[in-house]
């Protein structure tokens, strides 16, 4: 009897874990759908009651992060773009190098590294912000005045983080490609400067749509996870760092999984 119970416990654990994860994803989807429904039912895109929240979030997520993004873009240009061009120079033609740069820098490393920056910077800030607001009764006070939290706090953060993720990745990718190509032209072969034009010519509408979709999904998921965790803070100040850690880990996991699924969907 005891052996069966142990066996059930062992085999039941992954099942329970899986069910929990599936339910969590459903919770997140419901949460974001309700937030966006409330926002779209009350606002027009350029005439929003939460306009200032949206703009403030875009400034924090996008504009304030430009220095960090620039530095990481330059580093990526040197570490990845320059190295890829110099290695590929030995094995393939310019066509292969162009495809490699688009696949690795534009469609993989760019969105992924931008997502990591947004998770660590914006995602954690959203959890701490909303968590503290909940803890100090600010959210209760807003609700008592008829303010819909989904419309006023959640949806603007989701929308602006998705927009910022896209903008940051464009900026990051441009810097990473330009700096790497310039270095290659200086140190390996001056004709490599032509990669700038080859890459821009090879960026088809199909690739652009993949790029845009991927980044918007990343930004959407990161902000949704952060808002959800921030609003789960209840009574204790210790919940804020706990929820922040949980949000970072969950966002990273989601970004990995979504990246893998999108890669499978695109290339197979």
């Amino acid at each position: 009897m005891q052996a069966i119970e142990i066996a059930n416990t062992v085999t039941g654990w992954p099942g329970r874990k899986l069910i929990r994860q599936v339910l969590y994803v459903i919770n997140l989807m419901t949460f974001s759908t309700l937030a966006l429904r409330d926002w779209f039912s009350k606002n027009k895109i350029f005439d929003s009651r939460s306009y200032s929240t949206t703009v403030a979030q875009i400034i924090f997520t996008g504009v304030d992060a430009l220095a960090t993004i620039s530095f990481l873009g330059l580093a990526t240009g040197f570490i990845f773009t320059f190295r890829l061009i110099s290695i590929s120079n030995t094995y393939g033609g310019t066509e292969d190098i162009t495809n490699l740069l688009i696949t690795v820098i534009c469609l993989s490393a760019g969105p992924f590294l931008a997502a990591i920056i947004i998770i660590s910077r914006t995602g954690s800030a959203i959890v701490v912000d909303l968590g503290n607001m909940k803890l100090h009764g600010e959210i209760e006070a807003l609700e008592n005045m008829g303010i819909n939290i989904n419309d006023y706090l959640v949806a603007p953060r989701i929308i602006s983080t998705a927009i910022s993720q896209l903008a940051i990745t464009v900026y990051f990718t441009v810097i990473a490609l330009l700096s790497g190509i310039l270095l290659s032209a200086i140190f390996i072969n001056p004709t490599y400067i032509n990669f700038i034009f080859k890459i821009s010519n090879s960026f088809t509408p199909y690739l652009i749509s993949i790029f845009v979709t991927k980044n918007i999904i990343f930004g959407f998921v990161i902000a949704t996870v952060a808002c959800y965790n921030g609003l789960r803070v209840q009574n204790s100040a210790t919940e804020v760092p706990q929820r922040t850690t949980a949000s970072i880990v969950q966002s990273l996991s989601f970004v990995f999984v979504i990246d893998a699924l999108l890669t499978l969907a695109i290339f197979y």
Partner: protein
Amino acid sequence: MTQQPIIQCENLIPRGLPFEYQGDALNFKLNKGEVTCIIGPNYSGKGVWIRTISGLEDQQSGKLSINGIDTQNLSLEEWTHSRMKVAYLHEDTALLSAANGLINVLAPALYHQLDRSSKKTLLAEKALEILEDIDPDINLDDLPAYITKDHQYKIAIARALLLEPDVLVLNNPFAHFNSDSKHKFQAFLKKQIDKGLSILLVTHDVHYALDVSDKIIFASQENLLQFDSKQALLNCNTPIVHEFMTRPENQAIT
């Protein structure tokens, strides 16, 4: 034509009382310009009663109507409107920590797009007028963390008043005031009442409650009693009321 009450309770019993309540249900109307105070001993559930009466907590039984609309099945629009018209503030009502005093006052009004009916500058002027009236010494440029508790509360009051409520529901409003500032704040409330604002409040200041109230609700764990005048309360022979009113802190009234 009879005026519709702002708040009407019929056989109301709150769900969230932290003890088993077997007393009477509440039948109560709050009309425009009226003041009703809820008084009673500590741990008598006054906070739960006032939150339920103002539509913030579910009732166990009975019916609550705000401006004639049953609060049980409110649409999102009706809920928003009812929350604007019944402004609830407790002693520690929080301000937005990331916004200064003036933005705190303006933010809810801007969210509700009250600047559409007037202009944004007019809304700001109105906010400054209310703040000037409530206390000209409030520093509006600082974040709430750098503002004293009594000034924070006054900013919260101004924020609520900018939404043009029909009734101000105040739960223990004088907790952060010293004697002098309390009297000034009470004078401000009196002006608002004279302008036609209704007030429903829970207070430990029985003197004030008896001075301003049109109706008094006495809450205890055993029962809920309503009085239409100060004299009716003072003449009441119910032991728990008599015991409460003859306490040293309340005795000056009798």
